[in-house]
């Protein structure tokens, strides 16, 4: 039984790795330099810090933020964006990720309010459409979280430790 479970785990792990490497799920490496004229890596960092805070305030599942960041990077790999629209991209990616991952009941207004109503509901929905078109609905993607969980599983199996011990590592 144990060996069989290991074998299946291995297959799953290989599959996850192959999915992660798929080109369509990866942002381009140098989009900041080549494509983006108005934004800088520093602004992206600030945006993500703000999103992390948002995720905390609204008690979203941990994976939501990782998915949102992946959507943001993939969108930025294809479309140049102006400084003033960057936050809209961030908040909308977060909205899609939370709908997809969290089955959350937060509606579009909640997310529009987080930007102090700087962007209205219509703008968020319009952005949602653009993002989904760019990502071509490829929303599920293994994230750091997926792999951490996998490693945690393996670690628990080998050391017979309970999983909460690893949760805090």
């Amino acid at each position, binding site marked *: 039984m144990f060996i069989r479970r290991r074998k299946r785990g291995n297959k799953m792990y290989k599959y996850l790795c192959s999915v992660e490497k798929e080109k369509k799920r990866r942002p381009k490496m140098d989009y900041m330099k080549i494509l983006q004229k108005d934004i800088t890596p520093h602004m992206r960092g600030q945006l993500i810090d703000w999103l992390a805070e948002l995720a905390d305030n609204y008690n979203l*599942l941990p994976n939501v933020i990782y998915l949102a960041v992946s959507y943001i990077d993939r969108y930025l790999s294809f479309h140049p964006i102006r400084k003033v629209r960057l936050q809209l991209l961030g908040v909308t990616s977060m*909205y899609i990720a939370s*709908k997809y991952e969290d089955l959350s009941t937060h509606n*579009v207004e909640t997310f529009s309010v987080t930007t102090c109503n700087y962007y209205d509901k219509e703008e968020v929905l319009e952005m949602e459409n653009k993002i989904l078109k760019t990502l*071509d*609905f490829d929303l599920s993607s293994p994230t750091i979280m997926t792999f951490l969980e996998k490693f945690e599983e393996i670690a628990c199996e080998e050391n017979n430790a309970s999983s909460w011990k690893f949760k805090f590592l």
Partner: protein
Amino acid sequence: MEEIVHLGIPFLTPDQWDVITPAYKDFELIRSEGPRFGDMFKCKLKSTKEVVAMKILTIPEDQKSNGIPYSILNHVSILKTLNHPNILKLHTVLRTDLDVEDVFLVFEYIDVSLKKFLATPFPIDVIKLGKPFLRQALSGLAYLHVQKIIHRNLKPNNILLSFQNHEISKLKLTDFGVAKSIEPPLSPYSINMGNPCYKAPELLLGFTNYSTAVDIWSMGCIFAEMIKLQPLFIGNDGPKILTEIFCLLGTPTEENWPGVASLCSFIQAFDPPIKPKDLAAEFPKLEPDGLDLLSRMLCLCPNSRISAVEALEHPYLRP
């Protein structure tokens, strides 16, 4: 609008018409599953003349204000991750900048559903087809389950077949409208989807922490239906089907399904429990190995039910 009615396709609204006619022609309705799951129709790609199947997912009126709902995000993104010879391939997702909110899915086209095939008056020797059918269907299912996706709505309608020289050349599982990826944290799942005739007993009893075994049960029912040429359990609601299941397979007891009594108190009312019928008498045409596999797929306890990967290694399916 007049033109559309003239062509015999009243199922498209003028807006939808504007989106798909630039690239597609020759529309023909295949089946309609009501407003919730959308219509499926076949059409031709103008550029290559390739025949494709198209499905329109419409956003329910009350959810429009929140953009694309979870059900559609989930449905489409699951379809996008799937790539297996026994699963209907999604070619493209059509979205436009026009003011149309629907999502158009374009699939490969396969001739008949199993339901249609079984309804044909003199089908080809079905017993002979049982083995290749089950092998292909289970390998599609095994692929899904390895990726931790539960289909949750397997029925003859959702299995498409194409034939060559009286043999199944292609078998594709389709309709992932209520499919679900199992991801932690495991929250209770909905039990209100799918056709009750193919629902596993744990779903009918109301357990919300079910797993991939529900698909195996459905597949067992479908396999039995192929052999019998009629649905194994007939009825239009849960309790009726549950009664039929217990009549054929006996009532579950604490021995063969540990924990069932604590989750479902009325089971103890069956005292003494109903004895299972002899499957060999029910399916006289099926060989012993086939019977053994069928009984493992129709095992009442979900934890002892055979998995898709194990079933593929069963003597009955070994080449």
